[in-house]
Structure formats: C-alpha cells, structure tokens
C-alpha cells in the first residue's frame, strides 16, 4: 500500500476520533432540546463551568477567593488540601445538579408555555451569566486538568502498523485520550438511549418534550423533569469539559467548543441521541478528509467552514437532520 493511501486511512481514523469529541458536546444540546424544546445556548459554557469546578475542587481552591480578598483584605486562595479526582467528579456533579435546580427555579419555571425563541433567549442570558460567574468563582487563569487520563500517541498501535508502509511511514497515529473519549461516548449514548426509551423518567422526559401542558395534565412533574434533564446535560458537559480540558487546559475557550457541535446537530438532528454520534462522526471524517485532500490546494484551514457546508448539504435533502423528527404542521 502506498504511504499516501495509508495516511488517508490515518486521517479517517483521527476524523472518527475527533467526531466523537464533537458528539460529546452535541449530546448535551440534544438532551435538553429533546426534553424541553430549548436550544441551550449555554451548553458550551456549562462544559467550561463544570471543568472549572472540577479543577477548583481537586486543587482545594477557595471559591470566590478574589472577591473575598478584595472585600475583606484577606489573602486566602486555597484550603490547603487536595481532593482525589473521583471524589471531585462526584462533588462537581453535585454542583451541576444544584445549578440545574437553580436554573429551573429561577429561570425556566417562570417561562413554562412560552415561545421557543423566548426560552432560547433565556439560555443566551444564562450563558453570559455563567461565564462571568465561573470567572468570579474560580478565576480566569488557565488551569491544568489532570485526572489521570493518559494522552499522546499509542506507541503500541504505531509499532503494530509501522510495517504496512515504506520507510517513511511511522505507523498509524491514534491519541490514547481520543480512544478513551470514544469509549466514554459509547457508554454515555447507550445509557442515555436506554434511559430515555425504557425508564419511567425517560418516558416522562419525552412526554414533556412533546407538550408541556399535556404532560402536566397527566401528572408529570415538569419541575422534576427539567431539573433531571439539566442535571444530565450538566453531567454530559462535565464529561466534555474533562476530555477537551485535558488537551488545552481549563480556560474560557472551552466554552467555544459549542461551535464544533452546531454542524453536528444540524446534520444529526436536534432530537436524536444516536444522531449526535453519527453526525459527529460524519463531520469529523468529512472535515479531516477535505483538509487532507483539498486543503493544501486552497491554503488550508478549511475545517471551520467545511463542517458547516457539509451540514448544509445534508440539510438540503433532510431538513430535520439525518435522525431528527420530521415536523408535520396540520392546518
């Protein structure tokens, strides 16, 4: 096999892995949209907030220390202890549940039955609030996230495949962290699909998504379901924050990972959990292959726009996305 062909395969493999990371972000959007019809603009910021909270707890950082020091003239920053990663993840999850409760209690409870655009606008406000709140709580410096995840090339896989090509071929490159992310994503998708299809709460979630008022009339607690959904989305945001934060450190830009999820949602559909995964894989492979084959001819850096073009092409044929529910309006 020629080295170019092998490099093409390598690009596809890495595109699949990148697609899984995109899908992890898209999942959070899908969950909330599916259950409440809200396009949650704040999903990217939730990933940032969750990751900031995780690092802050692990390092024993005093929340709001800058504010406390400025008001009281103190000089406190750390409690002086460190928290193990697993415990910190559970505590962070607790914070995200509390966040879900507060969002429901102070924002969406007052917006039941409102137009989707109103709910969307509310999430924009929520995103800006959470951005500033996260900074105030944990500071805006870049933080190293180390929960023991291995990253870097899989030497074993490189050695195993290095014989496939010529002398210039090093073997296929696969990042171990991406493999971990893929495994986690598969577990998440299977669990969430089973939960939404077969559990009582899952069915209630779908009922709420169909019609708030009708769900209320059959005794489903809208408050509980929304808190549940936002908590699950918070957990997905935490997972995405961990995977992306391990690569770049935890910093404001984590909130921008939402940009990577939008074409995935357009392609996979806003209401399908498997759609998020398949959409992510198609976008990941498509943009990487395009950059590999066409990019050098047109100056490179094609990925940011190509993902959207690809999604738009799919939308021409399936406006609801590959797996989205077809919207039928009867008049």
């Amino acid at each position, binding site marked *: 096999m020629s080295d170019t062909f092998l490099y093409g395969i390598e690009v596809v493999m890495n*595109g699949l892995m990148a697609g899984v990371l995109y899908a992890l972000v898209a999942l959070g959007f899908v969950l909330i949209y599916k259950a409440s019809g809200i396009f949650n603009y704040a999903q990217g910021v939730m990933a940032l907030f969750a990751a900031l909270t995780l690092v802050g707890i692990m390092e024993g950082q005093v929340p709001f220390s800058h504010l406390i020091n400025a008001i009281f003239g103190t*000089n406190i920053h750390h409690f002086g202890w460190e928290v193990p990663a697993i415990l910190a993840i559970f505590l962070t999850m607790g914070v995200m549940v509390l966040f879900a409760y507060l969002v429901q209690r102070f924002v969406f409870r007052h917006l039941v039955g409102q137009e989707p655009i109103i709910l969307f606008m509310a999430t924009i406000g929520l995103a800006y609030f959470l951005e500033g709140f996260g900074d105030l709580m944990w500071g805006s410096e870049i933080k190293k996230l180390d929960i023991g995840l291995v990253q870097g090339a899989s030497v074993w896989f490189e050695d195993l495949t290095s014989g496939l090509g010529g002398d210039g071929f090093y073997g296929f490159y696969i990042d171990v962290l991406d493999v971990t992310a893929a495994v986690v994503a598969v577990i998440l998708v299977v669990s969430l699909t089973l939960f939404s299809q077969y559990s009582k709460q899952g069915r209630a979630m779908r009922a709420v998504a169909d019609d708030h008022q009708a769900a209320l009339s059959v005794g489903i607690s809208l408050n509980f379901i929304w808190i549940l959904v936002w908590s699950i989305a918070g957990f997905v945001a935490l997972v995405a924050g961990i995977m*992306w934060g391990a690569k770049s*450190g935890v910093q404001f830009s984590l909130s921008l990972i939402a940009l990577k999820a939008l074409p995935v949602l357009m392609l996979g559909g806003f209401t399908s959990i498997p759609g998020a995964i398949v959409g992510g894989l198609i976008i990941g492979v498509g943009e990487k292959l395009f950059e590999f084959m066409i990019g050098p001819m047109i100056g490179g*850096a094609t990925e940011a726009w190509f993902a959207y073009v690809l999604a738009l092409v799919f939308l021409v044929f399936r406006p609801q996305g590959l797996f989205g529910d077809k919207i039928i309006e009867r008049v």
Partner: protein
Amino acid sequence: MKLKLATLALGAMMATGPVMAELVFPSLAYRTGPFAAGGIPFADGYSDYFTLLNARDGGIGGVMTAVPECETAYNTEKGVECYEALKGDGALVFQPLSTGITYQLIPKTTADDIPMHTMGYGRTSAKNGKVFSHTFNYPVNYWDGASVGVNHFKEQAGGSLEGKKITLLHFNGSYGKEPIPTLEALAAQEGFDLTIIPIDYPGQEQKSQWLQIRREKPDYILFWGWGVMNQVAVQEAVNIRYPMDQFMGIWWSGSENDVMPAGAGADGYKAIAFHNVGSDFAVFGDIQKYVVDAGTAAGDGSNVGTVLYNRGVYAAFLAAEAAKTAQAMSGTMDINASQMRDAMEALEITEAKMAAAGLAGFGPEFSVSCENHGGPGMAAIAQWNATDQKWSLITEFGPSDSSIVNPLIEADSAAYAAENNIAERCN
C-alpha cells in the same frame, strides 16, 4: 427650586472641573473573553508599574500618573470604542494590545495627534517613521522575530539551513500572517523549504495540522499562535513526540500559560523573547513592597514575575521613560500627547536607565528616531524548563537580518503611503 438647580449646577461643575494634573496612560485591557488569560497579567503589570511610580516616587517628575482601563475583550470594535472614550481624557499614549485594533487606530491616532505604542505586535511596517508619524513599535516587530528565530535554527543546524524544512504554524488572521513575507524571503536566501500551515480561530482542534506535521517531518517549526491555540499546539507536539527544542513560538506563544497544561512534555519548548524573564529584578521587590503589600495591586500579586506580567511592566517602563523625556524636552511637567509623541521619537533606553528603574539587563539598549520607530529589532531565545517550571534566556539579545527585513518594511510602508496620500517626513 432655583436653589436646587444652583446646587445641582455647582455639583456638576465640581464633578467635571479640573482637578490635580495627572499623566494619563490609558490601558486597553482584556480581562474577559477567550484571551483573558494572556490579557490579565499584561494589564496588571502595566497598571502596577505606574502605581509603583506614584507610591514610591510621587509619580513622574512630581506629577501623579493615572491608568484608566477600558475592557476590549480583544475585540476590534470595542477597542475602537475604548479609544474614542478615553482619548479626550488627556491620554498621552495608547497601547491597544491587539493587531486588529492597531490597524483601526493608525489613522485615528494620527488625526488626533496621540501616539500609539504597539510593542511587539501590530503593523510591522509602522517601524518606518517617515510614513507612520504616530505609531511606534519599538523595540522589535514580527519580522525581526521571524528573522531571529531562523537565525537560531541556523545556528542549531550547524550554520546552514540548506535543504532543511521549516514549517510556519500560524493563527489564520492578520497577526499570524505577518511573518510570511519575511520567511519567504529568508527561505530563498537560506535555501530551506518553507511550509505554511494555518490554524483557524480558536484552534482548539488541531489534529489535521499535526498529522500533516507528522507526515512531513519538518526539521523546525515556528509558531505564531495566541490563546487556546498555544496550549493545544504544545500538547499536540508532545503527543506526536516532536522534538521540543526544534519547536519555537513567537513571544505571544511563550508564556507560562502556554506550557503548563502540557506538563513535563513541554520541557525544552522555545520562544522568541524581546525582554528578560523571571522575577529576579529589583523592580519586582519594589512592586511587592509598595504595591502588592499595600493592597493597591491590579491583581492579587500572583502574576508578578511571569512572562506576560513582565511584558506589561516593560511597556509601562518604556512609556514612563518617554514621559520623562517629554518633560525634559518641553520644560514642563504636565505634558500633552503631542509632546509625548515627540519624546517617543527621541527616546533612548540605556542600561543606566534600566538599572535605575530596577530593570538592569531586562532588555536591549536602543534608541528611536524620526525614521526608525521600531528600535533595533533585537530578540533573544527563551526556553522552558518543565522541572523548575521556569523560562530562561538561552541566548543574548541578537539582531535580525536587516538586509531582509528593511526592504520589506520600505516596500510595505511605501504602499501604505501611496494608498493614503501620505508625504514622507523626516527629510
């Protein structure tokens, strides 16, 4: 009623009327947004140095200084709004801290007769004072940086880059594209193959770029990144096991922020630097004593001595020295922006001045002139030691290749002059 109106009018007059004279150094800062982690230490350093001058020396020439801050979030539109909001407050010099904002402010500052200092960023050809009367980019610019970087690689390669492969990995915007003309000219002169690989904003996902690097196996990589792009690039280089001592960033890709997330793997990464690193300078002791301990620091003091904090201090030092020069030249302590501009054009930074400010050996000695607003174009190479968690300079400050850089500056500034009908000055 009349009494109330008279009271209100008096109150308004008292609020807006002149108070004690101040030397105003506006700070266009970005403490929010995707680049906040880089913007905060710079803004803190800039502010803290002037706070130190007020607390320790009673200001500059007996006149207190003020640093009104305006948040740009690294956004060009907001930056221009900040400029418009602050220019009327007696601003002596603007430091926009963004190449995008710089390009917008070049004509505005010229029309308003307010100097602008773009230290190590902005429009490179602004070095030509014959065309750019109010823009200064001393002591170094991006083209100098590219040249110094290539010189270092040449030395590392044993004196010749003939047949070597150098990759420029860059932010796909005006800032990241700045070094391309210089590198193309250097490639022709030195005989190396240049590959240019852009990364789109924000640069959180760089798999394609690093797979290409892994395939093409360049001998050296020069990197022009900012924000999250830096941390991801360093991590990806570690992931593909690229030799870190052959990977070098420009000064905006060479702070603690950029290497810490990658941990031990980042050891050996290099960066081009135009000022010294670390906290082993007398000025930082004074900042600790007069500013941080006094509770008047812009931040919590934890940034003191970091690369970007030091850069803010250096920018403030250069502005303060220009203000002193303006006071000496004009014979008045309460200088205006026009006098500041004249002084920046006559600025001399000597070792004695740096030592007096507690910054001995912090940067190269240089002087500015009507023709040369960019100083000597000298830079050094810094290297990251992951064990000690420290940057250190591994070379002296060395010159760029002026035979390459100067003709490019002449050509670019001449084109700007022709487009904007600017008559050359300094004749």
